């Protein structure tokens, strides 16, 4: 029996020692007691008071998701570059599609100068659609985005459409004949991509048949199994299947072609559909921290974003270059939320009244 090291969900100092170097507990203590002590020792760090010195990255979802990966990869590079005081721990606080974590940053942790919260275009979309209750854009301070993915549309290898134009032509002619899958709920990111494309193709967006799945993987499986004809998602989700020749990407929803193995895939804009979908990944911090702290976060993310170490880590996480920090990022987020709100309204996903 080793006493293990870190507590649950709080990967604490990863510094050097693997768990096996811990001396076993003294055996003089009754063994059952020792067992419970081990259990307690393992459990306690989990509820460590939130006063510890190091920086903490709050991932608004469970381990394994995009937000969790944002926290862990950025935290690792910050530590490697010596930009952070020691290790950056990742805490998972799932709930309400990120709403619980945001609420935490606005209430209990509002003054915390060591707290960073992972965010993405999913956060701004939900804010725009008022899915976080009363929380709004300026309840937190937006620090920066350090990478992005672009939306894609994929079909199976033997689908009859050679390109996006052909697909959209047939779709517009008979909207009921094609069903699309995606990893987000109705009105979520994957659905929005399709709604925007439909609108750009002159269709009534609400005629699109969209079936939501639990995450991009399941949605892609439905395409592979032939249950749907179109998949809306992100490039990294289909990479392996595209390489194997089972799926084809019809278009990327990026401002220009993506370098690398997707360079041969045209953008939607090239095909005549003015649609872009940037799934950026970045951070906000509590709004009530002093300006000096906010500026420090901006500077830190800025140096991270420009570093070679991050460039490597970013590629490893399937992200494209996308660096926006400080005021530029705040303006970007504000514009995006306005934009999403207007879109959601015009698509009938939000009631039309103002505010």
């Amino acid at each position, binding site marked *: 029996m080793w006493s293990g090291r870190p*507590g649950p969900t709080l990967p604490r100092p990863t510094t050097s020692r693997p768990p096996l170097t811990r001396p076993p507990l003294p055996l003089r203590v009754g063994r059952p007691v020792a067992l419970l002590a081990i259990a307690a020792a393992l459990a306690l760090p989990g509820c460590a008071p939130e006063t510890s010195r190091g920086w903490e990255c709050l991932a608004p979802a469970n381990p394994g998701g995009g937000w969790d990966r944002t926290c862990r990869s950025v935290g690792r590079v910050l530590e490697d570059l010596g930009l952070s005081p020691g290790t950056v721990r990742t805490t998972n606080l799932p709930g309400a599609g990120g709403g619980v974590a945001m609420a935490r940053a606005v209430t209990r942790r509002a003054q915390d100068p060591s707290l960073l919260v992972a965010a993405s275009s999913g956060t701004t979309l939900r804010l725009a659609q008022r899915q976080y209750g009363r929380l709004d854009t300026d309840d937190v301070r937006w620090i920066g985005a350090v990478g992005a993915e672009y939306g894609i549309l994929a079909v199976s290898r033997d689908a009859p459409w050679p390109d996006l134009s052909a697909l959209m032509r047939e779709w517009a002619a008979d909207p009921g004949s094609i069903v699309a899958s995606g990893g987000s709920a109705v009105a979520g990111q994957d659905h929005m991509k399709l709604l925007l494309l439909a609108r750009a193709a002159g269709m009534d967006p609400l005629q699109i048949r969209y079936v939501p799945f639990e995450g991009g993987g399941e949605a892609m499986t439905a395409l*592979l199994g032939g249950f749907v004809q179109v998949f809306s998602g992100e490039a990294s989700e289909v990479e392996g299947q595209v390489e194997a020749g089972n799926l084809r990407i019809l278009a990327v929803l990026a401002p220009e072609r993506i370098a690398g193995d997707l360079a041969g895939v045209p953008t939607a804009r090239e095909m005549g559909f003015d649609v872009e979908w940037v799934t950026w990944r970045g951070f906000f911090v509590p709004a009530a921290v002093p300006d000096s702290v906010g500026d420090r976060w901006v500077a830190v993310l800025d140096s991270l974003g420009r570093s070679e170490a991050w460039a490597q880590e970013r590629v490893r996480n399937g992200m494209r270059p996308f660096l926006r920090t400080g005021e530029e990022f705040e303006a970007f987020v504000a514009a995006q939320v306005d934009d999403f709100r207007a879109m959601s309204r015009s698509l009938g996903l939000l009631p039309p009244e103002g505010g």
Partner: protein
Amino acid sequence: MPEALQLLGGGFAVALQPLNLALVLVGAVVGTSVGMLPGIGPINAIALLLPLAFAVDLPPESMLILMAGIYYGSQYGNSISTILLNVPGTASAVVTAIDGHALTRAGRAGPALAMSAVASFVGGTLSIFGLVLLAPVLSAWALRFGPAEYVALMVFAFVALSSLAGRSIPKALAATGFGLLLASVGLDPQSAVPRFAFGQLELLDGIDFLVATLGLFAVSEVLTLAEESPVGQSAAAAWGRARLTAAELTESGWTMVRSSVLGFAVGVLPGAGGTVASFLAYSTEQRISDDQGTFGSGDLRGVAAPEAANNAAANGAMIPLLTLGVPGSGTTAVLLGALLALNVTPGPLLIEQRPELFWGLAASMYIGNVALLVLNLPLVGLFVRVLALPRWILVPGVAALSYTSVYAVTNSGFDLVILTVLGVVGWAMRKGGFPLAPVILALVLGPLLERNLRRSLALSGGDWGVLASSPIAVGLWVAAAAALALPPLAARLRRSVAPRAGSGPPSP
């Protein structure tokens, strides 16, 4: 398959290197100790140790090998707290708790723990063979499972719930209804509209099954113990031998084999997972082999079935991960993240392009399995001594463990309130003779059924015929109907056959 065997041999050569062997052992030990904490299952254990492994810069194979060890270890650790303390940390352990804890109360905790280790080993071993030999074939089978097939599978699972009914069918139905009610709290899975959230952000994600499980089982257990026990008495007077007899092993032999096959087949389906697997295995075994009606009141086969199925399902879940790049469970989602961080893209080409990785993983999973058996069988005698603790230590200990676990995983004070409320509800249900397991299973199965039903209808444009439009779906409907109709028939048959001894099916 000489080529596959050769490659597997290569895999073993990788996995048996001293460093990798040490890692798998460390992983199994750490996993077991972490897994004993309810709720800190494989997902968190792996997420926790990943940065550590990155920090020491292990090669990809070694990293996967370490994770395989943790994976197995934490699953077994979870069974320990389930069987001894009735504190199941995952939904699939809820099934183990039924007979496992009944055995503990009957003073046979030792055999129960040993059976759990052996059954996990058998399930793991058989399913690794399945993984090695059938991975490409099975990924095709997973693809043919569309929403309509999942609906039929879930209905089948709901029918199987009747085997957990205990003495009173109406009470079991009430418990199932309560579970479904809990399951409907939160965002509507399709349109993201809040249901029964009462404006609380914390309720938007619904009731976490960990909170429900610990509340209904652990907290209510604490309340019951606190109520009935005189101070100073220990939790169980006896725990039996820490070994299994040959008779016990042979009796459970076929149970383990059948459950492994079933668990593996269900585990291959992304999203269905260990809960459905262990639960279907339990109810199937009860129907097939429970001729004395001992399931539910402390039958070793009731421990063997879910434990074998759960482990087999865990390995089955590797197939969609490795061949489709689709994580079939929370743990495989974490594994996927790790693979991507290692520059490995899971997908149909993985086995071809990175054979050393695939076969190394298969071999290390096997070694993890062996390591667990070798480590834990001798330790059973140690683990059961937890029961020797006087209640004045054990009762607050279990309570503290439950509350810290929930807080550690969800970081939410609100969940502690729900935990308490559900604890009181669970205590009241025990008093009223309502079974608790159906609540958790309905909580897990309900959303799966709802989502897939709505998906099927969205795909078909509202035509209910889609639900029985494929051979797989029809087969599952027939199985569900049979599960509903056969037990009464079999019982009648058995009564009429009983006088003539020795004509039953071979029960080794």
